[in-house]
């Protein structure tokens, strides 16, 4: 492993600015790492030529003394972000060959900040999943394996490709999206940091839509500081997105003061899910202790609506998805299966183009919006969503952020749960509420399971208070001594 790829984002940035190495050298190291990591199937499209061209521009700017915030930093982009003139698939057969004539706002901001595009990472098809096993391009493997077990594990999902790439040091950092936990849960499974910002903090323009009111683009990185740096470049108001927050972007990096004294940390009792593994409960308590040691005050609180969050999500998200995916019809882009009639063409194209999980969710979504069922399902779920948001609002009158586990288990084997949709959906039990309420939430790797697999802890904060969430997350990171853990340096990990 190249020593260049062992540097985290903050360190690489410093190295580039101090001219200890060039952007070209750093990018070449990552291109090689990306190639070496191919067995993981973390990337759908590698863009080494583009990367080198961008690195060259970064080097020119650095030499001229006008370095941009992320100049020369090699980033992997979840293949849900439209990248101009570069294949963008959403991991779906129905977007075969789709080459967007536009760049998503978030990735455009990254390139404007000087970052380098390594490639487009794998995901669950249309971001629907918690395992990255529903991709048309095959499953992605978690770089971590259980001690003494050779079975490939899922990296989590839907941003599994991004998580695996970062964990395997095949990218310095990555973008993801989080609709029900799709940044945080794979971050937890792969032992990296993943942040779902507040709804509207990062623009959705140019991000292939799954569920419009729940989709959150966000950073995935090795450390909390790295995530803060990346968030700063990704965030900001976008007039092209009507749900984008018209608020200035604070300096998230500067907010990492290391001082969390006096902060009240809510511990929601309802997150103690029945059947939750003891080691996760233990890690959660450990997390609370770490924070107490750092001067914060854990406080037990209640979020009574928690148990209804999963149903609420699995009504609302598929409903919005059923409408957002209606545009995939074979007419203007992507796959077209010829038909004798228009109806045939639509039906055959969509039947061939969508995978089983996407079909399932589109059908559920169509049903819950249909005449006679709208009130009982969709409208009801919208109301319960209000109550879930109220729960958080009430909690935040007493505490400054919440601490919970990120996922109810460590990474499982590829192929497990594949025939039981609801079992798969339960992976998101801790992450979904923050999506429904639109609140910022961070997963920090905090410990290892008995099998030697990463376990994350989640910090949830007030709207637009990513600074506090990151600061508390960093305190956990410090206490958990995470940065030295990576595949190859701990027992039980793959090289």
């Amino acid at each position, binding site marked *: 492993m190249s020593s260049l790829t062992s540097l985290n984002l903050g360190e690489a940035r410093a190295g580039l600015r101090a001219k200890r190495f060039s952007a070209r050298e750093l990018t070449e190291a990552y291109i090689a790492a990306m190639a070496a990591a191919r067995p993981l199937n973390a990337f759908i499209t590698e863009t080494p030529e583009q990367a080198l061209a961008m690195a060259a521009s970064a080097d020119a700017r650095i030499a001229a003394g006008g370095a941009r915030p992320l100049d020369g930093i090699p980033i992997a982009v979840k293949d849900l972000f*439209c990248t101009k003139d570069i294949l963008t698939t*959403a991991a779906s057969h129905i*977007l075969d060959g789709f080459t967007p004539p536009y760049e998503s706002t978030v990735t455009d901001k990254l390139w404007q900040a000087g970052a380098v595009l390594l490639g487009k990472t794998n995901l669950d098809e249309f971001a629907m999943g918690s395992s990255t096993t529903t991709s048309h391009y095959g499953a992605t493997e978690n770089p971590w394996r259980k001690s003494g077990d050779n079975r490939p594990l899922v990296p989590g999902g839907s941003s599994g490709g991004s998580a695996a790439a970062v964990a395997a040091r095949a990218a310095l950092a990555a973008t993801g999206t989080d609709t029900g936990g799709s940044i945080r849960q794979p971050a937890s499974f792969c032992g990296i940091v993943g942040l779902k910002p507040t709804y509207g903090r990062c623009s*959705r*323009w140019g991000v*292939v*839509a799954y569920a419009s009111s729940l989709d959150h683009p966000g950073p995935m990185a090795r450390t909390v500081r790295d995530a803060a740096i990346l968030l700063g470049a990704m965030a900001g108001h976008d007039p092209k997105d*009507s749900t984008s927050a018209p608020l200035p972007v604070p300096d998230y990096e500067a907010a990492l003061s290391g001082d969390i004294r006096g902060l009240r940390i809510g511990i929601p009792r309802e997150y103690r899910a029945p059947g939750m593994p003891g080691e996760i409960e233990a890690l959660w308590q450990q997390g609370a202790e770490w924070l107490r040691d750092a001067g914060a005050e854990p406080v037990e609180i209640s979020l009574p609506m928690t148990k209804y969050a999963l149903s609420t999500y699995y009504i609302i998200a598929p409903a919005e998805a059923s409408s957002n995916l209606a545009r995939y019809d074979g007419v203007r882009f992507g796959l077209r299966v010829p038909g004798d009639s228009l109806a045939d063409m639509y039906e055959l194209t969509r039947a061939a183009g969508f995978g089983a999980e996407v079909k399932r969710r589109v059908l559920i979504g169509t049903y819950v*919006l249909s005449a006679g069922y709208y009130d009982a399902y969709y409208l009801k779920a919208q109301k319960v969503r209000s109550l879930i948001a109220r729960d958080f609002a009430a909690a935040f009158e007493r505490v400054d952020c919440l601490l919970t586990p990120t996922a109810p288990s460590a990474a499982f084997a590829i192929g497990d749960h594949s025939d039981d949709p609801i079992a798969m959906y339960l992976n998101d039990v801790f992450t979904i509420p923050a999506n429904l309420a639109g609140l910022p939430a961070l997963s920090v790797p905090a410990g290892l399971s008995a099998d030697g697999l990463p376990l994350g802890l989640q910090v949830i904060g007030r709207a637009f208070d990513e600074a506090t969430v990151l600061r508390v997350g960093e305190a956990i990171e410090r206490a958990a001594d995470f940065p030295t853990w990576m595949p190859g340096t701990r027992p039980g990990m793959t090289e």
Partner: protein
Amino acid sequence: MTALIEGRTGQWEIVIGLEVHAQVTAKAKLFSGAATAFGAAPNSQVSPVDAGFPGMLPVINRHVVEQAVKTGLGLDAEINLVSVFDRKNYFYPDLPAGYQISQYQQPIVGRGRVILDMPDGATRTVGITRLHLEQDAGKSLHDQHPKETYVDLNRAGIGLMEIVSEPDLRSAEEAGLYLRKLRSILRYLGTCDGNMEEGSLRCDCNVSVRHPGDPLGTRCEIKNLNSVRFVMQAIEVEARRQVDLIEAGGAVEQQTRLYDSIRGETRRMRSKEHDHDYRYFPDPDLLPLVLEQDWLDRLRAELPELPDAKKARFIAEFGLTVEDATVLVAERATAAYFERAAAGRDAKAAANWVMGDLFGALNRLGLGIKASPVAPERLGALIDLIADGTISGRIAKDVFAAMVETGAAPGDIVEQQGLRQLSDTGMIAAAVDAALAAYPAQVAQYAGNPKILGFFVGQVMKATQGKANPAVVNDMLRRKLGG
């Protein structure tokens, strides 16, 4: 004005409600920055947002919202300060996203009304149920290829106001009056150009029949009627079809139909057969639209004078008849022309000239009033020349024709062509005497046949190239003929 249909089982009343789709006059579309101009090359006025590309998002055009509010105010309607955009989900090639952004339960405008100017001078009020904003769809061309339909998305995303009337109309004629009045109001406000040939105004028609006093019958919707004439024809044809069907023992099924103007019949529309479940839900990409009361008040204050108010004012200020006022206010530009022509002079004369000779000339030349070769002030000057006796009404017509042709001022034409009315009694007397001297037989007939006067008037006018003041001629002849 109910037009009852005589059927075998008695009289039938037609009940009509109209849904008008009016394209909002704006440079850009409702939710994207693409242009709206008519007649552009296919797919050249399309943003990726309009084309439903992955990741694209809508942003609402403030001016289009303003236009909808102004229209609501012009329809004397309730403006809803909070309204919501919903997705109407269905599949069709000219609907790229697979849904249309529309408004379902909370439209921007609520109940209002349109006042019909009936031919007999009375008025009739037709209720408006609501007005909402929605995206227009693209165009599907089915006749360009034997096996394919071609799709042009230029129109996709243009802002439409859907204006729904109460089922208050009772005849094809009333429907025609309603459409024309609605179009007039929209053109006054500048919120829609009302051009049905270009498709900026389209009408769907809901028609049902019943015996007077019975509850409402089942209605059929006739879609995409693009002229007032076709609307009226389609209503009559459909009403007749329904009456015949019921009287033959059948029942009207609720369905969507098209009007075939060549065959003069309505036909069931195949593509709308299934799929009435639009699964409306609030668009999560758009937050509720909240209007400020002061903004609304400012828009209301800035509204132009609308046809009904202008008509009332023309009747009160200018003493016009209801019929004349109704004609003159139908188009804002016509009303403005009339007012300038009538300023400070006989309004009735101005009205007659505008509605008679001016309209005649414009029709002949195929011009709208804004392109009139005769400016309103010049028409007014012509009327003054008649009023002060400089020329006769008869000569004025010739002068007017010359004004249309040359654009010259009436006074100049009169001088150049020497058309000044002859009022010099001496010269007229000479002509009168000459005429009387030339026709002694007719002079003798006068006592028994006073109509001979006309003959002599004609002779004097001929002798004076029509310039003699007719009143003076008549007067003088009468005295000399001895009456």
